[in-house]
C-alpha cells in the first residue's frame, strides 16, 4: 500500500480511537467507583454536543465572531453542563438503585439514555435532522504525497492526549485521585478512612460525563455534523472498548478504544470489496477477544467469594 494512504488510515484510526477512548474512560471510571454500567453515557455525549451547538448559536446571536473564543466557551459550557447532568443522574437514578440487581441499573440508565435522546430529537429545534457543526479550528492542511495532514486533526489529537494525561495526573498525583482510587478499591475501608463516599462518587460521575461532552464536541468538529443518534453508537462502542480493555482499568479503556478503532480501520483496509463489513468484523473480533480473555485484556483481579 502507498505510504500516504497508509498514513491517512492511521490518522483516521487515531482520531476515532481518541473519541472511543474518551468515552470508554467514562465507563470504566463509573464502574470503578460504583460497580455499575451507566448506559446513558453515550447520550450524555449527544446532549453535550448539542449544548455546545446551542452555545454557538447563542454566541452568534450576541454577535461574537472570534472562533477561538467561541470554541472555548462551547467546550466549557458543554463540559460543565454535562458534569452537572452526570452528577444528577448519579444522585437520583444510580445511587438509589445500589442494592438492586445490576441489570436494573443497566436498564434504568438505558431508558434514561432513551429519554435524553428523544428529548434532543423532540425539543431541540429541528433536532430530528442532522445538524451542521461549525468548523471552528484552523483549516490549514499540508499535503504530503497522498496524505492530507489537517491541522485541526492534530489540534484535536493533542487536546485529547492532554485531557488523558491530565486525567492521569488527577488520578495518580492528587488527593482527590487518591480518594477516587480508594473508593474504587474498597468502599467500606475508604469510608472508615474518612472519605466522603457520596461526594467522591458524584465527582467521578462529573468527571466522566465532562469527558463525554468533550468527546461529543470533538466528534462534532471532526465530522462537522451531529445528529441525535451519535451517542447511541459511540456509547455502545465505548462500552465495548471499556470491556475488552478490562473494566475498572483506565489504561484498559484507552487501549480498548484505540484497539476498536484499529479493528475498524483494518476491517476497511483488508476488506476493500466489502468495507461495509468493517463493523461486522470489529464486533466479531470483540466477541472473539471476550472468548479468549473473559475479563478483558487488562484483567480485573477477581476472587470468587463463597
Amino acid at each position, binding site marked *: 500500500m502507498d505510504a500516504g494512504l497508509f498514513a491517512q488510515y492511521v490518522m483516521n484510526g487515531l482520531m476515532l480511537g481518541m473519541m472511543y477512548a474518551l468515552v470508554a474512560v467514562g465507563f470504566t471510571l463509573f*464502574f470503578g467507583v460504583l460497580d455499575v*454500567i451507566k448506559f446513558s453515557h453515550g447520550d450524555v455525549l449527544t446532549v453535550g454536543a448539542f449544548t455546545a451547538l446551542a452555545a454557538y448559536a447563542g454566541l452568534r446571536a450576541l454577535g461574537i465572531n472570534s472562533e477561538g473564543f467561541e470554541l472555548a466557551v462551547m467546550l466549557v459550557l458543554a463540559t460543565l453542563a454535562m458534569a452537572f447532568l452526570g452528577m444528577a443522574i448519579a444522585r437520583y*437514578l444510580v445511587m*438509589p*438503585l445500589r442494592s*438492586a*440487581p*445490576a*441489570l*436494573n441499573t*443497566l*436498564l*434504568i440508565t*438505558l*431508558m*434514561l439514555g*432513551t*429519554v435524553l435522546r*428523544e*428529548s434532543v430529537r*423532540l425539543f431541540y429545534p429541528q433536532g430530528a435532522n442532522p445538524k451542521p457543526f461549525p468548523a471552528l479550528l484552523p483549516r490549514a492542511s499540508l499535503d504530503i504525497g497522498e496524505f492530507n495532514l489537517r491541522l485541526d486533526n492534530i489540534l484535536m489529537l493533542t487536546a485529547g492526549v492532554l485531557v488523558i494525561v491530565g486525567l492521569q495526573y488527577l488520578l495518580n498525583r492528587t488527593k482527590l485521585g487518591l480518594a477516587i482510587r480508594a473508593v474504587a478499591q474498597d468502599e467500606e475501608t475508604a469510608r472508615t478512612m474518612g472519605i466522603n463516599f457520596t461526594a467522591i462518587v458524584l465527582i467521578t460521575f462529573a468527571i466522566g460525563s465532562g469527558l463525554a461532552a468533550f468527546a461529543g464536541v470533538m466528534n462534532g468538529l471532526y465530522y462537522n455534523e451531529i445528529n441525535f443518534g451519535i451517542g447511541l453508537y459511540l456509547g*455502545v462502542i465505548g*462500552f*465495548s472498548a471499556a*470491556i*475488552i480493555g478490562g*473494566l475498572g482499568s483506565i489504561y484498559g479503556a484507552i487501549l480498548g478504544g484505540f484497539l476498536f478503532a484499529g479493528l475498524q480501520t483494518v476491517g476497511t483496509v483488508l476488506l476493500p470489496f*466489502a468495507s*461495509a*463489513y468493517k*463493523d*461486522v468484523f470489529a*464486533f*466479531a473480533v*470483540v*466477541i*472473539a477477544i*471476550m*472468548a479468549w480473555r*473473559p*475479563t*478483558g485484556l487488562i484483567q480485573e483481579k477477581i476472587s*470468587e467469594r*463463597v
Partner: protein
Amino acid sequence: MLAIATVYLIALLSAEKQILIIALLLAGIAVVIAAAWFGVLEGLGATFADHENALGGWAIIAALAAAAYFYDNHFVLLLVITVLLYSVATLGLNVQFGYAGVLNFAGASFFGIGAYTSAVLNTYTSLPHVLVLAAGGFLAALAGSLLLFPVLRTRGHYAAVVTIAFALLFKTFLEVNDVLGGPQGMQVKGMRILGWSFNDNIEIGKISLSFYMNYFVVGLLLLVGAIILVRRLERSWIGLNLDALRLDETAANCFGLDIARWKITAFLIGNFLIGIAGALFGMVGGFVAPNNYTFADSLILVSILLLGGIGNPWGLIVATIIVVVVPEKLQTIQEYRFLLYALMVIAVLLFRPQGLLPRPVRRYFPGWRP
C-alpha cells in the same frame, strides 16, 4: 375477574378517540393502584396461583373472545398477534435469563434470524411451512451456539457485551448483505398449510373473517405450547437445576451440577423459542427488514421481562400487552411515545424493582400450602 380484564382490553383496543383511550388507561392504572392499596391484589394473586390451570383455560377463552370481537379488524388482530408472538419470544428470554441467569441482549437478533429464515425458505424452497417455523427456531439456536463459548466463559457485564456486540453485528450484517435484501429487507410469502392459504380472508356463510385470524390461531397455539413447555420446565428438575445455577454458580458446581451443560441447554431452548416466534412473525408481517431487529428492539424485549417480573410467565404476558399495545394506541402523543415509555420503565424500576407480577415461589401442586 378475568372477564372484566378482557372487557377492559377489548374496550381499549376498540377505542378510537384519543381522549377515551387516555381516560381508559388512567382508569386502569387507578383501579390497579386502588386494588393494591386495599390489599385485594394479594388475595387475587393467591386465588390465581391456586387455580392456575383454570386460569390458563380462561385466558385462552378470553383471547379467543377478544379475537372474535375483532373478527374483521386487521389492525387490531395484528396487534393481538404481535402480543402473542412477543410473549413467546420473552418466554424464551425468560428461560435464559429468568431461570438460568444467562444474559441475552440480542433477543431481537435471534427473533430476526427466525424471520429471515422464513423469508429465505419460503422464497427459495417449497418446504412445508410448519417445518419452516421449526427451522427458524433451529437456526436461531444454531446461531446462538456460535456465541456459546464466549457466553460460557464470561460473566455479568462481560457476558452482556458479547450479546450486545452480536446484536450490532447482526444488524450491520443484514444491512450490508445484498443476498438478504440489504437495508430494504425481503418479502415473505404468507403461510400455507395443506393447501390452506393463510393470506386469504375466511368466508363462513356471509361473515368474512380477517385473514389475520389464521395467524392468530397459530400464534395462540404457539403461545400455549410455549407456556406449557416453560411451566413444565420450571417445575421439573431441570428448572430446579437452572435456578440453582442462577442463584449461586459456585455452590451449584459444588453439588455436582454441570454448569456449562445447563447454561447451554437454557440458552438454546430460549433461542429456539425466540426463533420460532420470529419465523411466524416474519410470515405475519409479510416483510422483514434490518431496522426491525436492532439493539433497541432487543432492549424492548429485555424491558418486557423486567417489567413483568422475571420468571413469571403471566407477568410477561401482561407486560407484553402494556409494552406493545399502549404505544400503538396512543397516537396523539405518537411523537412522544418513546419518551413516555422510557419514563414509565424508569418509574417502574424506581418504585417497583421486582416487576409488576414478581415470580412466586415454585409450587409443585396447585393449591398446596405448607
